[in-house]
């Protein structure tokens, strides 16, 4: 019998990328550019589904499997899109078919000198002790680092 609980948490991550705002926008809004960094660790994770339909009401999905056998699924719906500046979306995470969280994600991009500041804010409901904001933040920090590395590739 599942012990029910909810934890409501907000965290915020900032990065200053050495790239123009248009490139950073592309990295978060273009499916091919996003697939370069938005994924599980390639040495232990296989992506089985990845798609993105960037419009208000459109969906994004990333599903896959760790070598250990654990499956994950990320499912998002876009609620606000301001070209070049902002995305707001709601997303759920499932591990092995069980929903572990429901969150809002906000990505905001602003120019800073010749570089780009990205601010990611997550407001999450972490369900039944199956994940924590600290773990989610850690995973997200790694993804935003991978985004940065993808900007310096062709």
């Amino acid at each position, binding site marked *: 019998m599942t012990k029910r609980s909810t934890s409501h948490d907000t965290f915020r991550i900032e990065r200053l990328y050495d790239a123009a705002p248009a490139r950073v926008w592309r990295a978060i809004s273009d499916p091919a550019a996003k697939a370069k960094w938005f994924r599980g660790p390639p040495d232990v994770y296989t992506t089985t589904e990845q798609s993105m339909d960037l419009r208000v009401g459109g969906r994004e999905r990333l599903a896959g499997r760790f070598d250990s056998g654990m499956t994950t699924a990320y499912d998002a719906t876009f609620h606000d899109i301001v070209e070049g500046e902002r995305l707001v979306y709601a997303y759920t995470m499932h591990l092995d078919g069980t*929903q572990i969280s*429901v969150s809002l994600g906000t990505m905001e991009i602003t120019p800073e000198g010749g570089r780009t500041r990205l601010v990611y804010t997550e407001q999450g409901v972490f*369900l039944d002790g199956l994940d924590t904001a600290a773990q989610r933040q850690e995973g997200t920090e790694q993804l935003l680092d991978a985004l940065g590395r993808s900007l310096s590739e062709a």
Partner: protein
Amino acid sequence: MPVQHGHFTLERVYPASPARVFAAFSVKEKKQRWFSCFDDLESVEIELDFRVGGHELNRLKPPGAVAHVMRGTFHDIVPGERFVEAFTMHLGERLISVSLLTVEVRAEGEGARLTLTEQGVFYDGYDQAEREEGTAVGLDRLGEIIAAGLL
């Protein structure tokens, strides 16, 4: 224009069973009896498909003002106990917020404690205090309907 991130929690204890209080949110005919943060309305439109992946629409038009349109999607439901919903609010055509709503109901004494949490992204001059106030009015209305034996 940057957005603002806000977060509030409201609690009420109602003289009704948890199942009855939960049904006030999950059953359309019951929701219609209390759901409004306005005293008088030109028109009300409510749609409610209470299941994971289901949608909710509430369109409330006060006289002489634009319609408040709330559109939600249910993402998590523990029947009788909890639900988590993502919703947008528009004033007319203008998006004023994107939020997560968590409603939890549990037995307390002879009645039920309801805990409502909203985590929101608020736009252009529409702020958390207004949302919190409107939501509190709604929960007070629910209490009146329960007390009047109308739920």
